[in-house]
Structures are given as C-alpha cells and as structure tokens.
C-alpha cells in the first residue's frame, strides 16, 4: 500500500533541483536563492556547516515497513544515523551532506516517499489521527481523505508557492488528536442524519501568536473536502500577506479581512469547485485487518512487566481481536538499526501497520492478541521508555538553542532531568498519564506548549545585571472539539528549578486529582493557585556568586547568554529583557514612595535611572556590561537621537557619576525620566521602532549604522508597495518590479530589496530608463533597498 502517489512531474523537478545544487556548489547560484529552492524540497540547512535536514512527507502519519527500512538505511548511510519523528507525523533525516541530497531524494522516491513540500511556503504534510481506522471511539476513518488529498495537492503546481506554509489536518472524533481545530485547515469527523461529514475549522495555528481555528462549516458532507481545500488554497494564494513573513500565515488573513470578508472571499472561490463532482477525491479505503504471514511464530511472554506494559501501551481496536500498540520514542528519535529491526518484524504483519503521532511516537496497529509478545520483545529491544509509566511518552521538547537560531533555552537538556526526578520520586506516575508535558525553547511553539496540559517555553530571567535561563509556565489546554482552548500562562520559574517544580506541583495535583475528572478542571479550580504557590518556593533567585548553576542551562557548558556571538535574532528574548526592566521600574517607584529611609529612597531612585536607561538598549542591539556603559549608551542612542528629551542628560550623568546626594532633591526628574522611557516603550512597534502619534518614526537624526537600517525600514513603511527580490536573478527581478508597478497608480512608491552585484547594477537603471524615478538607493546589510516612484 501507499500513503500517497508521487506525481509524475516530480522526476523533472528533481532533475532541476540536482542542476540547481550544482549551480549553487559552483557558485553560480547565490545562497539566498538556493535556500528558497531547497526549503520547498523539504531540505533545511543545519547549524553544522554544509549539512542538511531532509523532511519526508508521511500523509496521515502512515509509513510502510518497507519505507521505514529504506529511511533507516539512508539515515545510517548518509545522515546522522537516526530517523527523527516530527510533531507533524513526518520523518526527518539529519546531517545529510549536500552532495548526497539527490541520491537520498531518489532513493526515497523508489519507495514512494517524497520530501517535496516538507518545508517552505507549501502545502505541508497532511495529518490524520494516529488511531483513525482502528479506534473504537471514532466517527469514521479519516485517513483515506488525508491520503487522497495529499496525492492531489502534491500534484498541483500552485501548492508550492504560497504566501506561507499551509497545514491541513483530519481528526476522527471530537478529541481532535490531530489538532484540526488549531491549524490552517482542519476537518473533524461528524455524522449528521446518517450522513458522514466534517466540521471544518480554518485559520488556526500555533506559533508565537497562537489562534484557535475559526469555524468554516458547522457541517459539510464528506465529498466537499477537496473543494474546500482548493478554495482555501487559492484564496490564501491570492490574498495572503507575502510582504511580511511574520504576518503571512492564513490565521493573519482572517484577522486582516475580518470574518465576513474572509467568508465572502472563501465562498467566491468555493462556489467554483463546490459542485464539480469530477474533482472529488478518489478515496481508497484503508483496510485494517490481520495480515500475519503464514508460519510467523507467535512469541509467548508472561509476567508482571509484560502485563504492565500491556496495560499501559496496548489498546484493543474496533476490529475484534486486533490491538494497537503505542511505542514511546525518546524525543522522536529512532536509531537507524532499530528502524530496520522494526521494519523486519512488522513486515510479517502486512503493510498497513505503522502510524506516527503528533506527540512524536509511533503506533503499531492490526496486531492479533496472540502476537503481542512479539511486539513486546521488539519494543523492549529498541527502547527502555516502554518500561516507564505512560506519562513520558507524550512529552515533547523542541530542539532548542543548540541547533535552532531562535532558541532561548534548551528543552532537550531539561527533559531528561524532569524524567529523572519523576522516576526517582514516589509519585504514582501511572496516575499522571493524563498530564502531557510540552516544552519549547522560545515563544515559537515548536514544542507545542500551547496545547499542553503542562507547558513551558523558554524565557530570559534576570538577577541584577545577570541573565539566566527560565521558563514560562502554561497549563490547562483543552483538545475537545467545541471547547478547544490553549494553555493559560500562569507563572515562571528558573530553568534550574524546573524539574523540582514539576515534581512538586504534580505531587500537589495527585493529592487533589480524585476531585476532578480532567486536569484542566483542576487547573481552572485551584491548579493555577497551586502553580503560584509552588513557584513562590523558587521565587528568590541566587546571585551568580551565590549559586552559579542557575546561570547555566541544563545540558550546556557555557554560561547563559542570548546575544552571544550573533545578532539578536530572537526578538522574544528581547521583549523578556525589556519586561524585566519595566517591572523593576514599577517596583522601584513603589519603593521610593513607600520607603521612609533616605538611603533606601536614594537607592530606589538610582535603580530607577539604571533600569530606565537600560530598558530599551536591547532594541538597538546593545548589551552594556557596566552601569557606566548603560548610562553612556542611553545618552548616545536615546537622548542624542531625540527619542528622549535632552533635559534628562543631566540626571543620567548624576547617576553615572554616582552623585547620590543630589538624587533625592531631584527625584521628580527621575520619575519623569522613567515615565518618558515607559511612554517611549509603549510607542514601540513590532519592528522595534518608535512612532509618534501620527505614526512617524522617531529618532533617526544621528548617524550610527543601526539607525540607518531603521531609517530604511522607515522608507519601507511609507512606500505604497514592497517587494523582497533578494534571491531573484536578472532579469526576472526587473520583470517582477514591472509587474508590481503595472498595478500601481502614478506617483505611488515601491520599495524593493535587491541583491548586491548585477541586480543592483541593472534594475535601478532599467527602472529609470522606463521613466520612473529612483528616489533612494541604500545598502542595507547584505542587500540594497531601492525606493521607486511610478511615473
């Protein structure tokens, strides 16, 4: 069996890709353009130079033993040796050399697998509930829809160049195990008046701004899956925000258009496809039955361990006598030889036998009861996790700062610590199998913390001048169609204390668990208070001198730093740092007012100036080490640039020169300064620019390099249109300029970004030759910003 059909044109695309890799290696294609090419093929560059990650599509999480064997072999031959299971039911190979990418690609195709659309702005892997087709509680099997829709979508050219990624999911019942209610387009199986169909959600998503999906159809018959998917895709393609990557996902389109307009535009497209029966998906039922090879011997296993395993990890299917088995993986990893071993054994049971789940585990299905011993032996030989209580199986941790440029913390470092402390504790872990713990290293939800029972995402914490790794604590997500909600942010804890926090808090929950049916009910009733109470135990943080360990993340040998050796890519960490000072400002104002001691009041005022000065330095890429540096930089970057009034220079200098006696007399100036900085912070937009009431950008009057780039972004915001043409070669870049200008009115402006070299040498000249005005031409980091006015 196959979980999707490889489209015929893929071979040509691979030939082209092969050629493009060659061009890139010979230096004929620049890096930016090549990135665009390879990412859409599911090939991501990793931090280790010249190595790549290959993400392989597995529609509905399905893979055959033959396919798993091939991928496992490829992992050993060309990759890091292991197969990684993702939270979107796919497989990934890591650290593949660029020269082997095409070989890997072709080998994958030979077994009916493709990485096309693994990444980039494409139709991504289509999910289906891992137990679809075998669950006793399902409405009907949704996986044939995921499979057929995948085959259709990957054969359509318009699937590969969308404004942003497009994720589709199918759930077989209201427990929504594929998270259809929080994705771009989600289908949840329903039955109405004897008819099978779906409730359809769209424009949901996780990420740093999680949004629940919106109801597109309360009920629609099952034959409309393609028409809906196609209409959403076309609409996304037409109206999605291509200009601003951070606002490009479908969920932002709903925001931008508003419900009525979104639905109107959707129905305009939908009506074109709604009744075109010839386009309906060709569904192939997926048969779930026992297909044990003749003569395959059943292994009989007995004993307490086996029984416990059976209780924890196996479940009877709706097909009488057949079982499904969950196999927990350590953070989604399967060692290559283990993958082959799994394939060898499972091949005895047929090809429809394996599913990956969104919690990065795999599920074996269609096993007759008498063969459970065989599976037990198999699982036992590849993981020790299956001896653990089930609560460890669904733990998710993103890769974090060790490989990800965005990361703040290291979830993969802290996860084993949590497991370890729980294993050693006397808590009844089997009673905790309803608590799913998910951890992300930063506010981006690669670790799915928003859909966790207990979720964490990395943040920066501070003690005095020093930063340490910490985690925000979230709790109480609900995944149940109609009631779905994200986890609520409750409190925060230092990374060092996280394992102990988890243990202590879960201990409290166990004591009260009997009162509640669901964990989220406990969270709503008293769980949040308990979290605060436990956090209180860890509230007092040691200074670096008192306990240095707090300043190292789990699994890291280096002391914690956000900006170390690179540009501050993670704006999230930046906002944390700002928040720290905002909080101090608030507290010190209160201190100043409540303290009676002269000395205490003076200290409060000093700290006020200090934090006010430091608060926004990070937005200018400055990490000042000493008090003096902080004051100097504040004067240079905020007062001299007129962001903050000139009159405050004097009071900042008083602090810098530590003339503490003067502070008390001039307390009003100090309070005014903190007000001024707070107001400035309030005027800051998402791009870290400060705007006046009319929306004009403030503070560009001095000549530092950083400011130049801000000024250019300024031009961008004022231009009527924007086109990022980096990575687009001559003459197509000019073609695109012409196309954009064709729809512009006379006098309107267009800002373009161009690569250095022949693009910037040619395009502006061509624009002038056609009579348009080139208003400005500025070098900005690795590219040029050109502002054009239509003649």
């Amino acid at each position, binding site marked *: 069996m196959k979980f999707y059909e490889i489209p015929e044109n893929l071979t040509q695309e691979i030939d082209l890709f092969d050629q493009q890799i060659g061009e890139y290696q010979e230096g004929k294609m620049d890096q930016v353009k090549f990135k665009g090419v390879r990412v859409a093929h599911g090939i991501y560059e990793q931090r280790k130079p010249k190595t790549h990650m290959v993400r392989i599509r597995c529609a509905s999480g399905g893979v055959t033993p033959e396919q798993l064997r091939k991928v496992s072999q490829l992992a050993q031959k060309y990759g890091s040796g292991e197969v990684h299971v993702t939270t979107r039911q796919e497989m990934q190979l890591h650290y593949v050399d660029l020269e082997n990418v095409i070989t890997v690609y072709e080998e994958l195709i030979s077994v009916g697998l493709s990485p096309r659309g693994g990444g980039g702005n494409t139709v991504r892997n289509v999910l289906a509930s891992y137990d679809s087709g075998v669950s006793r509680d399902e409405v009907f099997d949704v996986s044939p829809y995921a499979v057929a829709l995948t085959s259709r979508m990957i054969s359509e050219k318009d699937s590969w160049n969308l404004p942003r990624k497009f994720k589709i999911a199918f759930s077989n019942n209201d427990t929504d195990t594929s998270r259809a209610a929080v994705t771009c387009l989600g289908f949840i199986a329903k039955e109405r008046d004897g008819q099978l169909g779906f409730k359809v959600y769209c424009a949901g998503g996780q990420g740093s701004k999680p949004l629940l999906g919106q109801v597109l159809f309360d009920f629609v018959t099952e034959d409309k899956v393609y028409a809906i998917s196609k209409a959403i895709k076309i609409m996304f393609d037409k109206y999605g925000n291509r200009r601003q990557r951070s606002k490009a996902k479908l969920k932002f389109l709903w925001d931008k258009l508003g419900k009525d307009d979104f639905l109107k535009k959707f129905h305009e497209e939908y009506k074109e496809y709604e009744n075109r029966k010839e386009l309906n998906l060709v569904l192939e039922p997926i048969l779930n039955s026992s297909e044990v090879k003749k003569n395959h011997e059943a292994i009989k296993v007995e004993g307490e361990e086996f029984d416990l395993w059976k209780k924890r990890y196996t479940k009877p299917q709706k097909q009488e006598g057949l079982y499904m088995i969950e196999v927990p993986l350590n953070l989604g990893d399967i060692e290559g030889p283990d993958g082959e071993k799994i394939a060898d054994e499972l091949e005895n049971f047929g090809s429809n036998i394996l599913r990956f789940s969104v919690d990065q585990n795999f599920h074996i299905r269609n096993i007759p009861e008498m063969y459970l011993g065989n599976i037990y032996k198999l699982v036992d030989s590849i993981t020790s996790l299956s001896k653990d209580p089930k609560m460890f199986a669904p733990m998710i941790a993103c890769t974090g700062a060790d490989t990800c440029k965005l990361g703040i913390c290291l979830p993969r470092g802290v996860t084993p610590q949590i497991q370890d402390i729980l294993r050693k504790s006397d808590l009844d872990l089997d009673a905790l199998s309803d608590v799913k713990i998910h951890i992300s290293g930063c506010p981006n939800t690669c670790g799915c913390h928003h859909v966790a029972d207990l979720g964490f995402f990395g943040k920066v914490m501070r003690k005095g001048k020093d930063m340490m790794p910490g985690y925000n604590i979230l709790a109480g997500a609900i995944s149940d169609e109609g009631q779905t909600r994200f986890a609520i942010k409750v409190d925060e804890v230092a990374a060092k204390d996280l394992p102990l926090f988890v243990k202590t808090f879960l201990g409290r929950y166990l004591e009260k668990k009997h009162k509640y049916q669901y964990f989220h009910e406990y969270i709503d009733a008293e769980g949040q208070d308990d979290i605060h109470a436990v956090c209180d135990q860890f509230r007092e943080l040691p200074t670096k001198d008192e306990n240095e360990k707090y300043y190292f993340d789990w699994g890291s040998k280096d002391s914690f730093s956000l900006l170390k050796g690179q540009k501050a890519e993670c704006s999230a960490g930046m906002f944390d740092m700002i928040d720290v000072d905002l909080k101090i400002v608030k507290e010190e104002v209160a201190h100043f007012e409540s303290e009676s001691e002269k000395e205490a009041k003076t200290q409060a005022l000093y700290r006020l100036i200090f934090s006010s000065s430091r608060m926004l330095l990070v937005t200018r890429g400055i990490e000042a080490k000493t008090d003096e540096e902080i004051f100097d930089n504040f004067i240079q970057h905020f007062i001299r640039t007129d962001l903050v009034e000139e009159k405050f220079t004097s009071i900042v200098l008083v602090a810098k020169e530590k003339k503490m006696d003067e502070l008390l007399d001039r307390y009003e100036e100090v309070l005014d300064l903190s007000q001024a900085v707070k107001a400035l912070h309030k005027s800051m937009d998402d791009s870290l620019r400060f705007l006046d009431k009319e929306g004009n950008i403030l503070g560009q009057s001095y000549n530092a390099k950083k400011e130049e780039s801000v000024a250019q972004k300024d031009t961008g915001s004022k231009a009527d249109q924007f086109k990022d043409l980096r990575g687009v070669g001559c003459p197509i870049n000019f*073609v695109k300029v*012409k*196309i954009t200008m064709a729809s512009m009115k006379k006098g309107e402006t267009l800002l373009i970004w161009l690569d250095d070299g022949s693009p910037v040498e040619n395009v502006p000249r061509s624009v002038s030759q056609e009579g348009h005005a080139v208003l400005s031409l500025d070098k900005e980091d690795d590219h040029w910003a050109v502002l054009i006015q239509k003649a």
Partner: protein
Amino acid sequence: MNFEMDLNEEQIERYSRHILLQDVGLEGQIKINESKVLLIGAGGLGAPIAMYLAAAGVGTIGLVDADNVDLSNLQRQIIHFTEDIGVPKVDSSEKKIKSINPDVSVVKIKEFADAQNIREMIRGWDFVIDGTDTFGIKFLVNDACVLEKKPFSHGGILRFAGQTMTVLPNTSACYRCVFLKPPPANAVPTCSQAGVLGAIAGMLGTIQAAEALKFITEVGDLLTDRLLSFDAKTMKFREVAFSKNPECGVCGENASIKELEDIVAPVCDLK
C-alpha cells in the same frame, strides 16, 4: 486591477522577455494572452506565424486548412515534421503549438476557406492572417475581412520574393485598393512551376507575426497604407505607399462587392 494574479510564476518567467520591453510590459503581455488570432492556411506562411504566436502566448490560435501534410511541404512548412506526413495540417500544427506553449488554445478548422464559409469563419477573432497561396483566395480573404471589418495581414511569396501589408478595413488601403482584381488565369506562373525558396516563407511569415503582435499590443506603426516587398536575391526591401482607393470594389465609395463569390483563379498545387 491586480495584474500579478493574471500570470503565475512560470508565465512570468516564460514571458519575461516581453514584459521587459517597455512598450509591451505586463499589460501588453496580458493583451497577448487574451487575444485570438486566426490563420488562414497552415502552410509555408502559417507555420512560422503559428509558432511565433504560440511562443508569444497568444491566447487562442485558429487554424484553417483542409490539407494533410505532404513530403513536398517539409522544405518550408517548418511546423510539420517528417513523421507528420499524411496527418492533417491542423492536427500537426496543434501538436507543435501545444508543445511550444501549453497555455495556448487551438481552434482547428479543417476546411478550405471559400465564399460560403469565410465570413462566418473570421467572426469572433481579433486579427486574421492571410497565409494562403493563391490570388483568388487572397482577394476572398481581403473582401471578407473588409466586409466583416476585421483587421488582417496580407502576405504572399513567390520564388525569392515576398510582399506583405496590413489592412485596417475602412481606415487603411486594402489589398483590393492596390491590386484591384486577381490577375487573369495563366498570367502568373503556378506556384509549382515557379517554386519558392523555403526561407522566404520564414522571412515573410515572421513579419506578419510581428504585425499581429503589434496590433494586439497597440505598439508602433502598423504596415498600413504601405506594401512592403523584398527580393532575397538582392536582399533589397522596398516600400510603396498607397492610400485608400475610392474606386475600390470592396471599400471604395461605390463599392459593388456586398456578397462574396468564389473567384476562379490559377489553382496552386504547391501547398
């Protein structure tokens, strides 16, 4: 109007060299993509014309020809290949057009144009190109286009020479304004006796294709009120100016031709 929606990435790349032309640009390309051009004759002239118009992305190309491909065609009718011998010319042409540019729609009319069907045939097209090879039919195409007010390009080749003009009915001189009436039978050699240098078909056909594209995109000055002729032996080009002839039988002040009739003329067996 959002032009970007009209062309996909692949089309933008395919037509980039048109879009780059200041006078064509995206607007011009979209006009081309939306245009409909009818070729009467899929032979020596029709071949290069159809291929260039297909490559340019003309939305719909109509082909009128009832013949099958013959071995003697292949010397100049470059849209047909050796393996197409015996295949209807419209089918052979369609295959090549689609292969050059799948965006193009082809309307095949496997008939010879005559007085009965031609007016109906040319209705609904934006521009007509005369790629026929006998005087009689050339007058028929001219008269039909004038009566239907259909802009068209006249073209003719013989031996080493070619001539062409573009006609905007009632605005510019028509073919009949210049030549009045077909020459008497036997006054000109039949084509098979005369022969033709294959490349002449390409030289003239591409001029006609260029005129069609200029008309569609409204760029430049059309070859109206002028007859362009050349002799490849000396490779000299000549242009003779004409104006509308008040005495013209079809567009003159007292035009007598209101209905079409087939004109008996030397039949050309050089298809």
